[in-house]
């Protein structure tokens, strides 16, 4: 009887240790994913889009689940739109930014673009290149 109890206790302890290590690995992965995202956001703010893409590639390999994958996809759209706008292609920028899933991030971009005289909605609906940019 005692022998059984010892075996059971050892099994329980082993399982707990295994779960803990798995949790630790997951936590480490999550932290690394988050750090990669933070770095990519920092690079975007500094207009260093190449570096941002590098961090996003790293984040993509660490992403776990739909939510994290969606965050990477959204930042890729931010990056792509910014690169397009920087290269004088506002329509392409508008279609990228308006495809962002995170509503708060998208609204923020729409508002900031509007402050700069760029109407993202008009740019995606009008045919002529350049329409929507107010002088």
């Amino acid at each position, binding site marked *: 009887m005692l022998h059984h109890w010892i075996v059971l206790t050892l099994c329980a302890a082993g399982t707990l240790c295994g779960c803990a290590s798995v949790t630790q690995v997951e936590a480490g992965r999550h932290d690394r994913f988050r750090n990669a995202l933070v770095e990519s*956001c920092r690079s*975007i*703010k500094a*207009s260093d889009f190449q570096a941002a893409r590098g961090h996003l590639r790293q984040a993509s390999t660490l992403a776990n689940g739909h939510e994290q994958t969606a*965050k990477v996809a959204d930042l890729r759209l*931010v990056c792509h739109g910014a690169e397009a*706008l920087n290269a004088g292609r506002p329509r392409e920028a508008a279609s990228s930014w308006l495809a962002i899933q995170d509503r708060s991030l998208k609204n923020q971009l729409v508002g*900031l*673009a509007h402050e700069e005289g760029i109407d993202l909605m008009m740019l995606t609906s009008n045919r002529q290149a350049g329409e929507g940019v107010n*002088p």
Partner: protein
Amino acid sequence: MKHRRCQILISVVTLLASGSLAWSLAPIPSRAQSLLRERDQLQQDLLRADQAASEAMLRGEDPVELYAEQTGLQEQIDIIQMRLESLAMRLEFDIPALPESIREFDPSQVLDESVGIGRRRAEAAMAHQCEVACGAIVSDMNFTSFLAF
């Protein structure tokens, strides 16, 4: 004697033929050219009005306004044609025939020609404005809530 007559006849025919060739190849004077341009433009307008009236009639309408437009255009063309014929007789040139079909009109081509310089300048200005705006937008972005997970 008969051979001699044939030679004279051939010479006369050759002379007449070269004369008519010279007549038909006479350059059209600039005054006539501007009239021709005007006539052909009016003819295009008339052909379009014809088509519009025909379409209206097929819809069961009686397009009186279009008939009036067609009549007005036809009268203008006739007046120009008379002036051209008078010029052609005096200055000895051939009048090109009136066009019978509607010329394909590409408004974007005409537009591009007339606004091309302005559009290129605007695009250059816009590219510069976009570059400046991009820097301002991304630097003002706030990722706090996006990263709160």
